[in-house]
């Protein structure tokens, strides 16, 4: 293998794939990045067996890519990335000699890194998709960002660390829950037949969301097999393993009735909870109380050691019974982050029942939170 490439182009390539490099593993090859030089193009691959990212650059006048001899090599990700980062932005010559020793040259600078035989690198899953969904980049990002925070961080129930993606009646739904709160986002897609479901690791999805371009006109195809999922972002391919098992039936826990409903401005509601949570932050439950009495909304929190806080909030509308309920402030703040600004409907069914947050004009986004039972 022997090629020339501009430093900044190579560094960008490595940074895109680096999220999929294995951190803790018994297989050293997984801590490396696979570089493959073919005629007029260079491909980088990282694959930790859960997540795989592959990115390719084609030769052009700006990146100065010139492949003299095709070939491939696996280089230790940490050292290789650091080396490239610290080189000046100029043309680099990379070549592999005997015993996988890789020579990186830039002017008078010369590095030799010990590589690993590319044949040892695991192959990415092959794709014969059972279904393909075309997302707009911003829609996909919105779907992920309004659900991914609610996945479980505990490995006790591995399935709950994933986002449940379901296609049914041309309707795509993302659902995430850690058992204490639930976030769901859905929309109807045209020309989409069949039905399937998959549980995609939440962490992979959060990584994906960060690489999605902020441009609604960019289309991101999402391909599904029975074991893997592939997102294609331009030249970047983003593979993730699916989680095995039957996701719990969440439909029956979403309340269909409402005893109390209140409409508030999401931003002001969030700010008030954020302030009240200051007093509760050292307690495990981050418990903030909400009191709605004769259309008057009060948020409060108290801690025997720290002090207390209380704030009255203007509401746009309130109907139904008075209610007093307590909740984990972090869960409500997470949920509100899915709505940005504007009015939000909060619907209660009593102080020991889960409550929902929803945009009045939008059926497809629902946040469900289980309260804290006051003593």
């Amino acid at each position, binding site marked *: 293998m022997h090629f020339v490439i501009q430093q900044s182009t190579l560094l960008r390539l490595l940074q895109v794939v680096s999220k999929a490099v294995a951190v803790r593993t018994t297989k050293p090859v997984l801590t490396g990045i696979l570089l493959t030089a073919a005629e007029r193009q260079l491909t980088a691959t990282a694959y930790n067996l859960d997540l795989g990212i592959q990115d390719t650059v084609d030769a052009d006048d700006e990146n100065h890519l010139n492949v003299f001899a095709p070939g491939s090599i696996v280089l230790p990700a940490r050292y290789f990335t650091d080396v490239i980062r610290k080189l000046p932005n100029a043309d680099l010559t990379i070549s592999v000699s005997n015993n996988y020793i890789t020579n990186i040259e830039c002017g008078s600078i010369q590095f030799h890194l010990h590589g690993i035989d590319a044949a040892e690198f695991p192959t990415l899953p092959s794709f014969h998709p059972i279904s393909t969904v075309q997302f707009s980049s911003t829609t996909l990002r919105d779907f992920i960002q309004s659900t991914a925070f609610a996945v479980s961080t505990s490995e*006790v129930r591995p399935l709950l660390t994933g986002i449940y993606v379901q296609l049914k009646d041309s309707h795509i739904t993302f659902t995430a829950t850690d*058992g*204490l709160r639930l976030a769901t986002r859905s929309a109807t897609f045209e020309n989409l037949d069949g039905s399937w479901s998959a549980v995609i690791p939440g962490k992979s999805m959060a990584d994906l969301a960060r690489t999605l371009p902020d441009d609604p006109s960019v289309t991101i195809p999402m391909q599904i097999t029975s074991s893997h999922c592939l997102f294609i972002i331009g030249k970047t391919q983003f593979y993730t393993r699916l989680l095995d098992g039957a996701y719990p039936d969440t439909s029956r826990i979403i309340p269909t009735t409402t005893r109390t409903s209140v409409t508030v401005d999401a931003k002001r509601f969030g700010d008030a909870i954020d302030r009240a949570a200051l007093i509760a932050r050292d307690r495990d439950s981050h418990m903030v109380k909400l009191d709605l009495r004769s259309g008057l909304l009060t948020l409060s929190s108290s801690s025997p050691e720290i002090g207390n806080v209380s704030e009255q909030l203007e509401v746009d509308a309130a109907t139904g019974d008075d209610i007093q309920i307590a909740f984990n402030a972090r869960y409500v703040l997470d949920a509100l982050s899915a709505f940005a600004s504007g009015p939000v409907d909060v619907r209660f069914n009593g102080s020991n029942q889960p409550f929902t947050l929803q945009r009045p004009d939008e059926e497809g986004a629902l946040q469900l939170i289980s309260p*804290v*039972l006051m003593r």
Partner: protein
Amino acid sequence: MRAVLHVDMNAFYCACHAAAEPSRYAGRPTAVAGSPETRHGVVVTASYEARALGVRATMTVAEALRVAPQLTLIHPDFDLYRRISRQVFDVVLSYTPQVEIFSIDECWADVSGSGQFGQPRAIAEEIQQRLLQELGIPCSIGVSANKFLAKMASDLRKPLCVTELWPDEIEERLWPLPIEQMFGVGDKSAARLRRLSIRTIGQLAHADPALLRRHFGVRGERWRALAAGLDDSPVVAHPAAPKSIGHSITLSRDVADLAALETVLLNLSDQVGRRLRRRGLAGRTVQLTIRYASRRTVTRARTLAERTELTEDIYATARALLQEHLRPGAAVRLLGVAIGQLGEPGPSDGVQLSLFDTLEASAFQPGGAVPPSGARPVQVEKLRRLTDATDRLRDKFGEDIVIRGRMLTDPESGQVRNRRIRGTSLQKDWLQSSRGDGDRRG
């Protein structure tokens, strides 16, 4: 000046058997030892007659029988020891309420305010006579102005002696003693002191405080004060709350089967829960100890979202730890379960409710997992009531009167419920029932 007694039973376990069955055991060389079949085959206590033949505690049964073939071996009966121990302490308590139980066979008694019973020495002699005559238990008693000197005094002459050691006598009688005999200084520390040329208690009393501080920190300074006969620590009648409560068991054979190990965990968790509730406590951190056949020992802990006093939570957490950390196929020699971060039962804060109730399958169903975080108030309340009822039944009719069927499938680890043969001299929570602290039998 304070007057403190240190009452130390002589060869206590052997003495208990001799008192219970004099015709079989009194005046004979006896040793209390576990059975070699269950790998508990070491001598725990040897009678003075056996000691005369060279039998020592910690010898294996085989070694003991080699030096004294006529030795009578006795299986431990902790029910007997606890019963007699309570009677012993009740006698001491009739002279002062200020009694600090140090272990099953040792206590301190502050008799500064017990003048109506006579001088300290007279009280000590009376206690000794009564224990011997009423219970058949021999003891040595140290009499001094503080706990340390009283303890050193009772160790000076054994068995069946009353020894006074007052501060003005220490130069003559305490300071010549080798450093190894100092109470509170372990073997390792004694060896380190020797390397610093401190070989006697007197040399410790006169050692350079800076040197002791450098090598042993505050401990060194405290030792120096003790060696000088200074100890103002009070006789504490009510013990401080424990930091953790745990049980462990050495299996009679190494076990690799996960299901079998889980049954052992269930038996251990059950007793941890029982002791926890008996104390009126709840805990938040469950710790699992695994000792493999190779003697490699690992401990793994998990902190729960809130404190619990329920066996079910302890077991579910211990089991999850076992499933996560047990090396597949590796044989296990010892398992232990403990619960820490103890405090009052019930969360001080609100309870985070869960969205699912059926999602958190019961810990006792196959595949059941630890609840993501507490949070099943209705079920928990039911379990609490069930636990309360079964606890009361077990207090009244015995540990085995109502237990889970699975616990019976492994009689060996079920022995953890058998308080008669299980015990340690330092486990004190069953010694105090006659004084009714936290005891629900009431």
